[in-house]
């Protein structure tokens, strides 16, 4: 079974630039999560999709972050404009369902904002 795919793996941008991350979840997984993991901290949920609908985006900085999941499969997370404090690893995870199902994480995208 193929795992969660993410690209790019690394990205370096200057502050105020924009960036986009892509995630392809495990086939058949209805739930998709985007987490932000700052160095030395645990992952923090940014947004959660159930199929192509948002069920939780309470911690997403909506003035600069946006995400979509077209057709309930792939998802993109965008930051525009980026700030220095956005430097982190952005993890995508997917699960078959919600609270009763294991979340499978991708390798993440390491973003450095200079």
């Amino acid at each position: 079974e193929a795992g969660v795919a993410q690209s790019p793996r690394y990205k370096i941008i200057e502050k105020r630039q924009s960036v986009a991350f892509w995630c392809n979840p495990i086939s058949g997984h209805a739930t998709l999560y985007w987490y932000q993991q700052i160095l030395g901290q645990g992952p923090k949920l940014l947004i959660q999709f159930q199929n192509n609908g948002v069920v939780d985006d309470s911690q997403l900085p909506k003035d600069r972050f946006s995400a979509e999941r077209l057709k309930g499969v792939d998802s993109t997370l965008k930051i525009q404009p980026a700030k220095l404090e956005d430097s982190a690893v952005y993890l995508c995870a997917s699960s078959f369902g919600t609270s009763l199902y294991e979340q499978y994480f991708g390798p993440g995208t390491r973003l450095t904002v200079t």
Partner: protein
Amino acid sequence: QQQVKQSPQSLIVQKGGISIINCAYENTAFDYFPWYQQFPGKGPALLIAIRPDVSEKKEGRFTISFNKSAKQFSLHIMDSQPGDSATYFCAASMGDSWGKLQFGAGTQVVVTP
């Protein structure tokens, strides 16, 4: 506001020793407590999980101990091996929260040969 507090931040254990990581929570509505293992450059992977209706769960060399009254849970790694060197995260979620996980800050474990 960190809902799950994890300690220690790091620990070094000799091969064959026991690694113990502790977590505490405040929200009594949490009903699912997983532990994740993360290697450098990889995403976290589920190691073992427990629900509050049991006090202990064991899978191989990994054991979760759960104390509902104290609102604490811990991970014990028995017979620690160099391959166990990783960062470990505890987490918690509520059944009505769509599976949203609240993670601890992580513990970096180093097992020396």
